[in-house]
């Protein structure tokens, strides 16, 4: 039973991180290869505050997220004005820098040996409620003016600016939301596994999430979440060896990109409206791109 609770909690934490990535990549079309680094900041800062400075958990979590957002702002500042390639390259460099920093600052962070002794505070209910809250908030965001402007900026930056949309600002907003959510996921992660080390927060992890989002369907929040659930929970349950799992994902996603690039779910979103329409047999008004 404990095993299944553990898998479920890990999956929920991944889902939380992925909602952030959905806003960044799905809605706004930016690819960050450094999201795992923000998760690391969330994990290490909150862990450090609680373990070494005796700060209560909730406060530590808030401080960790705030610090991540500030760092994210600095990273994003020169980058959001530029073409899409730059955010990927800069976040990749950033991820490497954070990993190096964590490895080097042995006295504070334990370096490559990791940081342990974090109390176990994340429970399944906490993870579940957090995940649900994140999903709900991001859904509302998608249907708001922010969501629309993000999609517009992704679709055609020039036309978006021509409509009066402050494109760098909306990109920064999306980026910071993703950073906040991902660092929160990091907090939950640290206080669940009670141990973190720099190795788990590399660009491969960021890449893995992007892959999960595309597997399910980058344009659909529902798809991204289901993709994450399937690709996180399934191999744990089936006990794939970690290395084979990576190759398996990669091959799967390459197949999908070749044959159904919009992902398993395409543009479909799970909502009460859609469900009712499906059940009553009415033709769905949305079509796949």
């Amino acid at each position: 039973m404990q095993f299944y609770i553990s898998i479920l909690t890990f999956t929920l934490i991944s889902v939380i991180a992925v909602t952030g990535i959905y806003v960044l990549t799905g809605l706004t079309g930016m690819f960050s290869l450094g999201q795992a680094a923000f998760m690391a900041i969330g994990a290490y800062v909150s862990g450090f505050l609680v373990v070494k400075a005796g700060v209560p958990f909730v406060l530590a979590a808030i401080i960790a997220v705030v610090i991540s957002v500030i760092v994210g702002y600095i990273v994003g500042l020169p980058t959001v004005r530029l073409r899409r390639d730059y955010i990927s390259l800069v976040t990749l460099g950033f991820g490497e820098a954070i990993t190096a920093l964590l490895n080097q600052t042995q006295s504070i962070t334990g370096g490559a040996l990791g940081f342990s002794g974090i109390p176990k505070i994340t429970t399944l209910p906490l993870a579940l409620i957090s995940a649900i809250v994140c999903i709900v908030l991001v859904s509302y965001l998608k249907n708001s003016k922010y969501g629309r402007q993000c999609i517009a900026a992704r679709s055609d930056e020039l036309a978006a600016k021509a409509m009066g949309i402050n494109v760098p600002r909306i990109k920064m907003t999306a980026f910071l939301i993703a950073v906040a959510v991902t660092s929160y996921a990091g907090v939950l992660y640290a206080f669940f596994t009670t141990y973190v080390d720099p190795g788990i927060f590399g660009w491969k992890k960021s890449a893995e999430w992007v892959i999960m989002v595309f597997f399910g369907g980058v344009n659909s929040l529902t798809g991204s979440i289901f993709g994450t659930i399937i690709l996180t929970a399934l191999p744990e349950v089936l006990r794939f060896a970690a290395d084979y799992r990576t190759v398996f994902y990669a091959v799967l996603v390459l197949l999908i990109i070749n044959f159904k690039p919009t992902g398993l779910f395409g543009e479909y979103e799970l909502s009460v409206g859609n469900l009712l329409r499906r059940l009553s047999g009415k033709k769905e008004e949305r079509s796949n791109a």
Partner: protein
Amino acid sequence: MLEVRNVSKSFGGVKAIQDVSLTAKKGDIIGIIGPNGAGKTTLFNVISGIYTADKGSVILDGKDITKMEQYMITREGIGRTFQNIRLFRGLTVLENVMCAFDPLSRYSIIDGLLPTPRRLAEEKRGREICEHYLEVVGMLKYKNERPENLPYGLQRKLEIARALTCQPKVLLLDEPAAGLNPTEVMELTELISRLCEEIGFAILLIEHRLELVMGISHKIHVLNFGKPIAEGTPEEIKENPDVIKAYLGEEEAKC
């Protein structure tokens, strides 16, 4: 209202436009014509802020907008459509139009994450305004369609509805009749005059369909190789030998 003063723009060694000037008052329809490559779209791009003029200035209602950011220029009151349609994929027709309203929408990120009363009210207000403009161009019944599923003529109308929602003082239409059949061109002509009368802004119109431009413009500017070669009323332009030479060549001008 809009003053373009001696604007020039070069790319590398190529002088795309040189020393172009025009003025437009409320209610004016100004046509801009010229052979392909004459720099017409470049002129629009400079006015709307995609490029910054190398020389000269663009003044809107007394305010110098030459060096402003593109999105700020839109908010000052320049709206536009594009020659090759640039609608937002992934959004419905109504959502496309709402994108133009969104920068003016008055709620914050907190309201963006939650269904607060302020958000619901602003979204409703936005929807009403956008649906109004969709109706003005006759597209209200398509509001939940995907733009890529619509025929060309309707996509063009959508671009116009979207530009109108920016509440422009000056509307730049870049070849709005391209690809339309004669009936659609007539509809468009009628739409443009109606808009001008009802809303009272200035319209700058780039067009190759001379029956549209000549029929509807109060004044026409002709560009060739980036330089202004004539300006005047449609009648004057039709007789102008330089214009005829530019379009048809030396021989025809002598006829």
